[in-house]
C-alpha cells in the first residue's frame, strides 16, 4: 500500500503541494488527474525518494520513505517501476541495454536470463526485435513503450506512470492504455497513473483523484467522478474553459465518454 499523508512541498516561493493525502490500495490502479503544473509528478516523485516532502510523509509498505537509509531506499526502489513522461531512456545505450540496465544492477540473474527477460518485456509492450536499436531511432510512442518495458522488466510490485499518453496521438494513446491494463493483468501490480487525458483515466483507473491547488479535491470511482457535482472537477473532466459552464448539471449518459473495458 502507498499512502501520502498531508504532503507539503514548495520550490522556492512556489508552494506546490499543500496537504496532499491519498491512499492507494494493493492491486488497484489509482489515477491522479489535474491541470498542468499542479504538482502531480511532484507527488509521485516522493514515492521513490526523488523528492523529500517539506512536511508530511509518504509510506510504502509501512516504511516512511523520507526516513529510510540509503540502503533501504535502494531496496524500496527495487519494488517500484517508474515510467517517465518522456521515457527518460539513456540515449547512449541500445534498447536492450536500457531494458537490461536495472536487471544488471541487481546481479540476481545470469546474462542469458537477462536476455530472455528483456525479450519478454519488449514482447509485452509489442516491441519484439528492437533490442539493437537506439532510442533516437524510435517514435515518441515507441520510446514510452520501451520505458514501460524497462520498468516492468524488474517485475515491480508498484508501477508509477507519469503522463504515459501525453503528446501521443489517440490511437497510440489507446495502445499505451491497453499495455497498462495488460501489464496489470499479467503482473498484478499496484499502479499510480498521472494524467490529464480523461479518456485514458476512465479506461485504466479503478479510482480517480483530482489534485487541485495542492491537495485532493475529490476522489472516487470512475462512475463517481463522471457523475460529480463539484464544478471544479466537472470543469476539468469535461474540458470546459470556465467554471460557469461547468456549473450546469452533470453530463448526461449520452455525453459521457464511452469507456471500453473500464475496470471501474
Amino acid at each position, binding site marked *: 500500500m502507498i499512502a501520502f499523508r498531508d504532503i507539503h512541498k514548495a520550490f522556492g516561493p512556489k508552494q506546490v503541494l499543500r496537504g496532499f493525502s491519498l491512499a492507494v490500495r494493493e492491486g488497484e490502479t489509482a489515477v491522479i488527474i489535474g491541470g498542468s503544473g499542479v504538482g502531480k509528478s511532484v507527488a509521485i*516523485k516522493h514515492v521513490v525518494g*526523488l523528492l523529500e516532502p517539506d512536511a508530511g510523509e509518504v509510506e510504502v509498505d509501512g516504511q516512511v520513505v523520507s526516513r529510510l537509509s*540509503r540502503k533501504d531506499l535502494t531496496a524500496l*526502489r527495487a519494488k*517500484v517501476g*517508474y515510467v517517465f*513522461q518522456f521515457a*527518460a531512456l539513456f540515449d547512449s545505450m541500445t534498447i536492450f541495454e536500457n531494458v537490461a*540496465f536495472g536487471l544488471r544492477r541487481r546481479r540476481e540473474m545470469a546474462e542469458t536470463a537477462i536476455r530472455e527477460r528483456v525479450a519478454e518485456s519488449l514482447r509485452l509492450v509489442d516491441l519484439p526485435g528492437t533490442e539493437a536499436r537506439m532510442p533516437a531511432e524510435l517514435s515518441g510512442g515507441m520510446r514510452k513503450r520501451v520505458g514501460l518495458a*524497462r520498468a516492468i522488466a524488474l517485475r515491480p510490485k508498484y508501477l508509477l506512470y507519469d503522463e504515459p499518453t501525453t503528446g501521443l496521438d489517440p490511437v497510440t494513446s489507446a495502445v499505451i492504455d491497453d499495455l497498462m491494463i495488460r501489464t496489470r493483468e499479467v503482473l498484478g501490480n499496484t499502479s499510480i497513473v498521472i494524467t490529464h487525458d480523461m479518456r485514458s483515466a476512465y479506461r485504466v483507473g479503478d479510482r480517480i483523484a483530482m489534485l487541485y491547488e495542492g491537495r485532493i479535491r475529490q476522489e472516487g470511482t470512475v462512475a463517481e467522478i463522471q457523475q460529480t457535482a463539484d464544478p471544479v472537477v466537472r470543469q476539468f473532466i469535461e474540458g470546459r474553459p470556465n467554471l460557469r459552464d461547468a456549473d450546469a448539471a452533470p453530463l448526461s449518459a449520452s455525453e459521457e465518454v464511452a469507456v471500453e473495458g473500464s475496470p471501474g
Partner: protein
Amino acid sequence: MLATVGRQSVGLVGTFGQLGFFAADTVRALADVRTWGRQVFPMMRRIGVDSLPVALFIAAFTGIVLALLASYIFTGQVPLYFVGALVGKTIMMELGPVLVGLSLAGRVGANIAAELGTMKVTEQVDALETLAYDPHAYLVVPRVIAGTVMFPVVVAFAMAMGILMGWVAATTLLPLTNAEFVRGLRLFYVPFDVQFGLIKAASFGFVITLIGCYLGLNTRGGAEGVGAATTKTVVYSAVLLLVLDAFWALTLLQPS
C-alpha cells in the same frame, strides 16, 4: 551597492558550501566500486586520450613562440643557450599545465556539464535513481577519477611537445645548435619541475571535472539551463584553475 555585494558574497559562499557537500558525496560513492569501476576506462579515453590533439596543438605553438620570445628578450645581454632553460622551465612549470588546463576547462568541463545537464533535464538522472543506481557513483566518480588521472598524462605529453617544438624552432630559426639548446635545457633543470607541473595538472583535472559534474547535475529548466550550466562551468573552472595555480606557487615554490 553594499547589499548587492553582500548578497552575492553569501551566494558565492553558499555555492562553495554545496560544492563541498557534493565532493563529500563523491568521496562516499567511491565505496561503490562495482558501479563506477567499468566506467573509468571509457572516461579516461574520452577525457584524456581524446583531449591529446588540442593539448599538443597548443603546446607546439607555445613552444615555438617561447623560443622566439626568449631570443627577442635576451637581445645579446644573456647567452642564447638560455633559450633552452626558459622554454623548458616555463613549459614544465607553468604554461604546459595552465594553458592545457584552460583549454580542457572548455573541452572537458563544458562537455561534462552539457552531458549531465541534458541527462538531468530529460529525467535520465531520475531514471538512474529509480533503477537503484547512485548518480554520484555512476556519473561523477568515474569522471573525476579520469580527470585527475588523465590531466597529468595529457600535460606530460604537452610538455614534451612544447619543449620539442621550442627546440626545433630554436635550432632552425635562431643561431643556436642542438648542444647549446640542450645545455640551456639542463642548466637549471631539477626533477621537481616536472613534478610541480603534474601536481598542478592533477588538481586542475579534479576541479574541472568536479565543477562540470556539480553544475551539470544541478541544471534546472531546459536547453537554456543546460547552456547556463555549460557557460558557468567554463568560467568557474578557469577562475578556480588560476586560483589553484597561485595556491601551488605559494605553497610549493617558497624559497628555502
